[in-house]
């Protein structure tokens, strides 16, 4: 699994504590990815726009919170999936709401997975690994 380091993981979440826990869980699990964290929706979207403009390398995976000041998770997800350059980036929703309507909405908008907080980190890592594997396939095929 040497390709794991190839994918950079972005976390867009306004909660400092949770972001720290997620980042550490990756390190603990031995996923040596590049890890970036945006502090709110607006910052996250700014980075994504920089990716579109070619000033920043594309993330391999986005972990996205829903409820944030500024742009919320739904909007970012929608924008990502509408963007030509970004729509192939898998997005995993990490959020504390488990309302079926919100889950449904996220999948409809194109989320790859929806994980309710408190995050089962093992499940998250598994998802990340699977998505990373598929990502590689896609990249090879392309």
């Amino acid at each position, binding site marked *: 699994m040497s390709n794991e380091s190839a994918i950079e993981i972005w976390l867009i979440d306004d909660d400092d*504590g949770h972001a*720290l*826990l997620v980042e550490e869980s990756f390190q603990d699990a031995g996923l040596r990815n590049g890890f970036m964290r945006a502090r709110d929706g*607006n910052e996250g979207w700014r980075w994504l726009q920089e990716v579109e403009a070619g000033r920043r390398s594309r993330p391999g995976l986005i972990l996205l919170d829903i*409820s944030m*000041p500024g742009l919320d998770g739904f909007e970012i997800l929608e924008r990502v999936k509408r963007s030509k350059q970004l729509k192939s980036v898998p997005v995993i929703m990490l959020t504390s709401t488990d309302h079926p309507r919100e889950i449904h909405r996220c999948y409809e908008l194109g989320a790859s997975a929806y994980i309710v*907080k408190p995050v089962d980190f093992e499940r998250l890592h598994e998802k990340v690994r699977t998505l990373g594997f598929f990502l590689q396939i896609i990249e090879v095929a392309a």
Partner: protein
Amino acid sequence: MLTIERVNTTKAYEAERRQLLRARTRSACVLATVFVPLFATADYYMFKAHFAVLLAARIFATLVGAGALVLLRTRIGRHSPGLIGGVVVLAAGFAVGGVSVLVTGTNTPHYVGVTLLILSASAVLPWRPIQVAVVTSLLTAMFIAAGLFHGSLPDAVTFSTQVSAILITGVLGISVSAFAESTRRREFTARRNLNQASNEKTQLIQNLEKMTGRLATANEDLQERQRETNDFLYVLSHDLRAPLINIQGFGKRLHTDMSGLEGALVNGSKNDATKRLERMQQSLQFLNAGTAKIDQLISRLLEVARLSTRPGEAQWVDAHRLAHEVADACRFQLEASGVEVVIGNLPRVWGDPVQLNQVFTNLVDNAVKYMGPSSRKRIDISCSRHGERYRFAVNDTGPGIAPKDQEKVFRLFARLGANGASGEGVGLATVRAIVNRHGGRIWVESTPGDGCTFYFTLPCAQELPAGAGARSAASAAGGMRQGEEVGVHV
């Protein structure tokens, strides 16, 4: 109840009858002014006497007949001002025979005309049978008296024929007027019933409309409650849960590090132990922050929740003065951010002065906070009346609010954070709770980039105690009382 109804009906019928009589009498008067000279002319050709004598005879006869009727009317206590005219035509016809016999000593062949007149008058004029009977008897008596007085009737058979003709006509007239009277009465009753039914229908419809209105209001209230509940659930499921999740996470982390520390101590790895301790300290910090956050959120949540249940001190509040007070209190903040506040004419409203002050303060504060780098920083506070409600408007020249966020801004702990403005997301939720408690609604209209206007309504009348009572009762009894209140008032 029924008797009263009947008396009223009779009274109303009499009034209507008098009106009808007056109207027809007026027409009869007009006809009389034409017919009296015409009859006189006919007499002139018929009897070959002096025209003036005949005309005088006609007028005299008319006046006698009219006088008799007026007497009759007065005696039975129903004096009618237009009555004299009414009898003119009839009397003119009735009296002609007697007078012409007196004047000319000849029986006239045009009694047929007279009898027809009696008939048509009893049908057309709204007379009672008794009136027709009296007039007929009077005329018969006159006719007989005139014949007797004259003494030399040429033909007794013709005379008696004439008398019987008048009497038969009288009987016919009585029947016709009786029939007409009963028809009119029936028609009147039917019409009155119809009116009553239609009035009742109108009232029913009005009641129904009122009830529909109340139901709509109740429905709006319920929807508002539903929204509040949804918001509350959202707050519970997200805002309160987020710090809890962190507490859980860092609790686990602390636990892991404690085990790690144990191992490090056993192994004597000082480096590892120090690192573990540092991490534990960090975990504790996050744990503290999490509990503090939860505490703060619960306090705020309770503050807002209490607003919708606590009974307020309602009184008349001069909103104009209140707005100026708020602007004065925020003057430092306003001057610092260069915002101008313009206050229009605001009415007096019924409500809790402290809470209403909070409404204006929070709205102004909110507008200033999110004003952004606008070139023309201005807040307009105005009010207009819409039916039974005042609609207040607080308009600003800030960046505006996107349509999708216009409902979200009122949610507790919601922050749009577009400008990185700090806030707990409590201000507008508080405003909404207060406005709802005062029986009003609040909403925002905005074109992004072109400022926004917060509208809220307050009732014009002294409505708060009942409305607020119902609201707090509704919140206490899970909304059931709301429906009851509607039922009782309708």
